């Protein structure tokens, strides 16, 4: 397999590579160079191994670096997709894609890996993919909370547990750390619910049509009572303090840890003692700060079917209008690519989040950034949406033959006596069943790739020299950005984030007298000429998306001149011209 991959990679720089190396489903007889089953999830070692196979098969395009270590000392790996033949990754606009910052939200990891796989498999055969890969770079970090993921696969959990990282935390303030986690009482690998039969004294009754379901019996004056009480998650009072499951491992949230609009634990539960407290978050922040070429950010979570943007909190206010327009354009494209997903604002449509990751990358760094919440169980029934536990059972019964549910069964609890335990397994509710996994990762990965396509691309539309007489020349340059995202977001310009764009002119016999931005196509005298250093114009607002900037210099001299545009988030471009 590796040998074949190497042969392939030697070919891949040539656009005339065999046409049957295409993405399966597009090309007949297509065979991927790395076969990966995308209808399942992989534990942390397996997922790295899949990416490593891609590196082995495409060493010229994909590389791996370790940027840090998790609390449990696992490698934090960034896989960089870049074609060195077209330049170093740092010279190009780059797309950051990560997933799984919440340990239980596992499919984010597969979606990140799929971004690499899709681009690699289609590089040789698809011109649009090749153009994107050749002009940009991708930084892919599949598992932010790799420890939480490992635990979710390895240990007994439910769909919601193992969200936290694994640094010990004294949730209940008794001086002991992580001493009372839920317990897998029956040892079946699932943490499900406990209920107890108390005839005539309960709060719930069994649904007569489906006794797996409990129904609440409201207090009433007719003397009608339930026969069951609900006792919460499977567990014991491990520390004998009279409470059950009150101090599980960790107990924090690495998506509340980022430095913009961060608030401490007592305002934003899970935030930790200060921003970037945990090593996973710190090494990622360092990497991102050291890569100002990152021009797009996508973070994959689950669940609910959402394409989320900030602000995370109402107190922030709204983002600048120009940036909202960019977000809206990508968001509405996303809604088309992702049926059952809605484009939403975090604080307004979901809940308040202080110190979120994508709010930091936009508000703190000025990068257009999305969080997707992968999988919406409304998808289970297509055009006949149903919701609630009964619907979950119907889906599970019809399409999974009940495999997702642990049937209620009796066991002896040391405190409660005879109880029943039962409920949905950890991979029901927040992750799709296997037959829907591939569609989910494909659609979401393609949304991130579409976002990457929108990263700025700057070029000179034209450069014109005109003789103004008396030895004075005007040099007019039109710089355009064909893509949706501006070279500097309005946020970046407003808060003076990063380095502004610069357009410069130089020549061995060229003296620059004045220079500035032109504000009118037809009236060259509408020139906002700068006070000093006219040879290098500073563009705090950059080059707008799908737009252009016009500059004019008044120069003296003769001979060749070179004009250069330089910015953090697009490739440097140069154009030569000559004074007559």
């Amino acid at each position, binding site marked *: 397999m590796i040998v074949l991959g190497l042969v392939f990679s030697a070919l891949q720089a040539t656009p005339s590579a065999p046409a049957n190396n295409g993405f399966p489903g597009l090309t007949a007889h297509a065979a991927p160079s790395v076969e990966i089953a995308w209808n399942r999830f992989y534990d942390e070692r397996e997922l790295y191994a899949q990416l490593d196979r891609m590196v082995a098969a495409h060493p010229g395009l994909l590389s791996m670096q370790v940027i840090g270590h998790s609390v449990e000392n696992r490698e934090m790996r960034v896989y960089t997709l870049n074609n060195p033949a077209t330049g170093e990754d740092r010279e190009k606009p780059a797309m950051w894609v990560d997933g799984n910052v919440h340990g239980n939200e596992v499919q984010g990891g597969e979606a990140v890996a799929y971004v690499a796989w899709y681009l690699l498999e289609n590089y040789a055969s698809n011109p649009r993919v090749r153009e994107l890969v050749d002009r940009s770079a991708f930084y892919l970090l599949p598992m932010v909370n790799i420890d939480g993921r490992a635990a979710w696969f390895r240990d007994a959990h439910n769909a919601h547990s193992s969200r936290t990282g694994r640094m010990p935390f*004294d949730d*209940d*303030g*008794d*001086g002991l750390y992580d001493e009372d986690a839920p317990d897998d009482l029956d040892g079946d690998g699932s943490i499900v619910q406990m209920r107890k039969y108390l005839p005539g004294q309960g709060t719930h009754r069994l649904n007569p049509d489906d006794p797996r379901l409990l129904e609440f019996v409201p207090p009433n004056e007719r003397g009608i009572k339930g026969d069951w009480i609900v006792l919460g998650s499977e567990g014991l009072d491990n520390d*004998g*303090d*009279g409470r059950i499951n009150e101090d599980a491992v960790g107990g924090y949230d690495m998506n509340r840890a980022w*430095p*913009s*609009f*961060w*608030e*401490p*634990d*007592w*305002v934003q539960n899970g935030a930790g*003692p*200060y*921003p*970037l407290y945990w090593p996973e978050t710190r090494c990622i*922040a360092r990497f991102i*700060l050291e890569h100002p070429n990152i021009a797009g950010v996508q973070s994959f979570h689950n669940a609910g079917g959402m394409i989320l943007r900030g602000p995370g*909190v*109402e*107190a922030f206010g709204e983002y600048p209008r120009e940036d909202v327009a960019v977000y809206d354009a990508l968001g509405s494209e996303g809604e088309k690519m992702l049926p059952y997903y809605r484009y939403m604002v975090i604080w307004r449509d979901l809940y*308040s989040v*202080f110190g979120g990751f994508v709010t930091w990358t936009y508000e*703190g760094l000025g990068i257009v950034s999305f969080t997707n919440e992968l999988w919406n169980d409304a998808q289970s029934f297509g055009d006949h949406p149903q919701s609630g536990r009964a619907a979950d059972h119907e889906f599970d019964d019809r399409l999974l033959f009940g495999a997702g549910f642990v049937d209620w069964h009796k066991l002896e609890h040391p405190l409660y006596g005879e109880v029943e335990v039962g409920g949905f397994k950890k991979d029901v509710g927040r992750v799709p069943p296997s037959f829907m996994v591939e569609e989910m990762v494909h659609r979401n990965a393609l949304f991130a790739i579409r976002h990457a396509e929108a990263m700025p691309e700057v070029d000179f539309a034209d450069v014109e020299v005109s003789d103004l007489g008396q030895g004075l020349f005007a040099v007019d340059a039109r710089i355009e950005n064909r893509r949706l995202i501006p070279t500097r977001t309005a946020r970046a310009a407003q*808060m*003076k*984030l990063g*380095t*502004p764009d*610069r357009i410069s002119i130089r020549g061995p016999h060229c003296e620059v007298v004045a220079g500035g931005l032109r504000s009118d196509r037809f009236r060259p005298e509408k020139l906002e000429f700068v*006070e*000093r*250093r006219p040879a*290098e114009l*500073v563009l*705090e607002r950059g080059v707008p998306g799908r737009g252009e900037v016009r500059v004019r210099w008044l120069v003296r001299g003769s001979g060749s001149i070179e004009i250069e545009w330089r910015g953090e988030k697009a490739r440097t471009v140069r154009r030569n011209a000559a004074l007559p």
Partner: protein
Amino acid sequence: MLIQAFAIASALVGQDAPAVRPPVPVYSHAQLAGRMREIRGAEWLTLGRSRSGLEISALRFATPGARGKPALLIVGNVDGLQPWSSSLALHHAERLAAQPDGERERALLERADVIVIPCANPDAHERRFTSVRSEREATGGGVDDDRDGRQGEDPPSDVDGDGMITWMRVEDPAGEWIADPADERALIKADAKRGERGRWKLWPEGRDLDLDERVAEDAASDACVNRNFAEEFKEHAAESGAYAMSEPESRALADFVLAHPEIALVVTYGAYDNMVEKPKTTQANARNKLVPAPGVIEADAELLAELGQRYRETTGNTAKGSGNDAGSWQAWLYGHRGLWSLAIHPWDAPLDAKRADAATTDAGPQGAERKPGEEPATSSGAPQGQPKGEAASAKKAKREPSDDAKRLTWIDTHPEEAARFVPWHGFEHPELGPVEIGGFAPFARSEPPASDSATIAEKEFEFLLSLGAELARVRIAELSAKPLAPDLFEVSAAIDNLSRLPLQSASARRTDSVRSLRVRLVLDDGAKLLGGDDALELQRSLGGSGARAEYRWLVRAARLGDIGLSIDTDHAGSDQRRAELKP
């Protein structure tokens, strides 16, 4: 040799001090470390390293004590521009080491371990000791201040080569500064309402290396350690740093506090003050759209005010600190960690000196004693413009001398302190042409005269010694058992705190950052809890000054001796006891 210019200027060692003690000079980071190594009876702790690699070190004075014995933390020069505050912290360590068996020293160490971090910000501290001295606080990452696409291309520098970075004034019709009529050397802002026109532009001493007609506007470093803490962190301000705790120094200090939950109270010597002046207060639950309002919660402010009252009585200090402590260490300790955080600004150049020719008496050599300051000091030598409150009553009122003019009066009446002000002198600047360079010498406003230094340090130490008794200390006041039936007891416990400070500050209760008191009923040999409170109670609050928490249990036990109580805290001691028969 300029280094010691005003620290050793006077041979008069404070005669009014209780004992004749040598002056307390400023020490470089290496000198501090050397003196710390001489100290016996304290454990050496390494917190981390500064950005440039200098060690941030602490000494811990520990005597055996019960579990949960509190610690008192003393920190010097986290601001970086208060090098004498490091000497003060070191002084306390040396005094504790010299006389551990002194009555008051022993009393303190019995109540609390004492941890001293003399120099929390070594890189900025060293600016006092390099060949060019400057009051530049920033040590961390830089930004492109002037947005010209380049970073750090136009830093301040010692243009006239006198070993100090001071100030430059340049005659300019667009300038906004004029001379203070009370003292021509002091600058004030021209007041258009008085018909005044500015005469000078004022720049930090430096070149205009990028020829943008702005002088020294883009230094290599911008982030300041004491603006880099997470409480009220000012995002996107260059001096704050890239993000809260991005600087190795702030992170090391924060991690140290997080790793030492026994720290109950912190004294920070530096630019800020909350002992002389009451801090800005807030309600415990004041919020704006979920975001908490900054400030000290009123209940805590009252306790700080009581400590402040005693501080002023003990030390006589009236130097107020600089005002806005957003992003500072001391604000973080209180606001995010719930700790008692005492900020002390030990000295500033006095504002109340009188000239010999004035109607009142000469302040004389004793005039160097600390006297009231009328507005918060800044740590720079920059002129401060109008005295506070003057703009409001500007009309035709006689102009009050500026604070800088008052400080100059103090310098003039103390000839040995003359080096604290660099007279304005003409200089041909490479980019600006003729300028004048001068102003307060770096650190002139943070280092007391040598003749006063020992007295100030002794008084501060005296206050420090008194703090041990204030720290919350829990104890079991009562554990009694009343027989109700054979083998059945009603067990009552009372836990109290006789100290002034409560177990938890209001901030600690709000932030849930200081662990609760754990009250555990201990039952041996088959004794069984039949009712009442839980076997483990977590007590989140216990007031000061004799406040009491009470618990009751029903216990079945064969013997009274099978019933016990154990209480634990991280920072206010612990206690245990066996039940006694209730009379």
